[in-house]
C-alpha cells in the first residue's frame, strides 16, 4: 500500500479504526484497500473546506451504499470521488440502513467515473469555448513527456502511447513485452476508425473511451485532442483505479495534441 494511514486502536475494545487525510491518499485508493481486505463497515468523510459529509458502507468488501450530502447511490459516489481535500474515518461493523449501490468496488468505481465524465462533458458543452481553449493550449503548458511519465507511475501501467488518428506513434513511454508499440499504433487507428464509423451510423456521438481485454494484456484508450492515448496493463484487476487515476492526466494530455 503506497499511502500512509493513521491507524489507531480503540483501547480495550480490540477493534481497529482507520483514519486519514484525503491529501495523503484518495477515496479510490481507500476503496481498493478496503475491498482487497474484505472489510465490513462504513467510511465517514468530511470535505475541507466546507464541511460537507459523506458515507460509504461496505459488507465483506462489497460497496453497498454511498451518500454525499443530498446525493445517494452512484451519484453520491461520483461526487465523493471528486473530493481531494478532507478527512476519512473507517468504522468497522457499521451497517447501512439501506442498499443504494450493491456493486463490487471495481464496478462501482467504473460506473461512478462514467457519471463524472458525463458531468464534465456537460460542463464543457460550449463548443466555441472549447476551440478557444484548444487554440490557447497549443501555445504552451506542461510537456507531454512529463504527463506520460506521470501516467507510468500509476501502479499497473506498463506502457503509454500517444497515436495520431492515422496511426503515427507520436510519443510513447515505458515498455511492454506484451505489445509492439508501432503495431499497436497502426491497429488502434484502424480500430478507432471502425468504432467512430459505427458511432456515426448509430448517431450516438463521438467515441469517449475503449477497453480491450485480451488474455495477456488489457488496453485502455481515450481520445486526447486530435490523437488517441492508450495505456497497457497486464490484466483487468486494477482497471477501475487506473481509469480513475488516468482521467486528469488524459485531460492534460489533450492540451498537447
Amino acid at each position, binding site marked *: 500500500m503506497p499511502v500512509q494511514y493513521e491507524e489507531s486502536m480503540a483501547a480495550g475494545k480490540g477493534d481497529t479504526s482507520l483514519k486519514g487525510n484525503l491529501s495523503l491518499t484518495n477515496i479510490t485508493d481507500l476503496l481498493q484497500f478496503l475491498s482487497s481486505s474484505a472489510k465490513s463497515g462504513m467510511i465517514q468523510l468530511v470535505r475541507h473546506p466546507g464541511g460537507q459529509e459523506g458515507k460509504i458502507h461496505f459488507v465483506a468488501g462489497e460497496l453497498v451504499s454511498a451518500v454525499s450530502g443530498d446525493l445517494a447511490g452512484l451519484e453520491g459516489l461520483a461526487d465523493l470521488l471528486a473530493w481531494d481535500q478532507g478527512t476519512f474515518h473507517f468504522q468497522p461493523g457499521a451497517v447501512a440502513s439501506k442498499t443504494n449501490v450493491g456493486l463490487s468496488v471495481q464496478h462501482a468505481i467504473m460506473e461512478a467515473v462514467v457519471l463524472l465524465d458525463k458531468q464534465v462533458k456537460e460542463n464543457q458543452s460550449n463548443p466555441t469555448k472549447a476551440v478557444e481553449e484548444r487554440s490557447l493550449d497549443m501555445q504552451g503548458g506542461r510537456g507531454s513527456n512529463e504527463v506520460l511519465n506521470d501516467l507510468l507511475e500509476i501502479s499497473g501501467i506498463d506502457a503509454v502511447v500517444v497515436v*495520431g488518428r*492515422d*496511426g*503515427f506513434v507520436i510519443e510513447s513511454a515505458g515498455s511492454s513485452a506484451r505489445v509492439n508499440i508501432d503495431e499497436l499504433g*497502426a491497429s488502434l*487507428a*484502424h480500430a478507432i*476508425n471502425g468504432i467512430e464509423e459505427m458511432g456515426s451510423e448509430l448517431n450516438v456521438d463521438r467515441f469517449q473511451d475503449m477497453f480491450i481485454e485480451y488474455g495477456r494484456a488489457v488496453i485502455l484508450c481515450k481520445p486526447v485532442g*486530435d490523437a488517441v492515448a492508450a495505456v497497457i496493463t497486464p490484466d483487468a484487476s486494477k482497471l477501475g483505479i487506473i481509469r480513475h487515476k488516468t482521467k486528469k492526466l488524459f485531460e492534460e494530455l489533450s492540451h498537447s*495534441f
Partner: protein
Amino acid sequence: MTVMRDTVVKSLAKINVQGDENGLIPEYEVLVNLLPVSLLNTFTERIMAAAPADRKAEVEAGLVRAAYECGYHTGCGIITSEIFNDVVMPMVTEGEKDILRGAYAAFTAWGWAKSGIVQLKEGEKMIIRAFDYYEADSGGEGLRAYMLRGLSQAFFDLAYADPYPDGMDTYVCHQTKGIEVGDPYGEFVVTKK
C-alpha cells in the same frame, strides 16, 4: 475513415529503384534519384563549413530554400499522382488534413524520415515530429534538418495556401528540436509567414 498511415506506407514502399539511363527513377509522376544520404549530408556540411561566420544564416536559408522548392514541386507531383489518387484519396474524409497525413506517410514510405503530424490547426499552424531522419547524422552545430524544414513548409503551402503554383512562401517552418542536438526526436513548427 481517415488516412491510415500503415496502408499508405505498405502500398507506396513498393517503389522500383531501377533508374533509367540518367539514373533517374520515374515514380509517382516525378523523377527521383537514389543517392547515399552521406553524400547529401557531406554536401551540407561542406557548404556550411565554407560559409563565413557572418553569412552562415544566409547559407542555411539557402539550403532550406532548396529543399522547399524541391518539396513544393515534387510534393505537388506526388499528391496529384495516379498512385496517390488510388491509395490515399479513397481514405480522405478530412480534406487537407488527411492529404497531409497521406503526404507524410508517403514521405516515410520513401525512407526520408519516419515523420507525422502531432498538431494541426487548419490553415494556421502545424507541428511535425520526425524520427530517424538522415540529417540527424550530419556533422555541424545546432539544429540542421534543413530538408525537413523546407519540405514541411512546402507541404503546408500545398495544403492551405493558394493553389499550385501560386501559393509559394505563404508559410514558414522553424525547427524546435533535433536528434542532432540530443533531443529524442526532431520537431518542426509551421506557421504563417
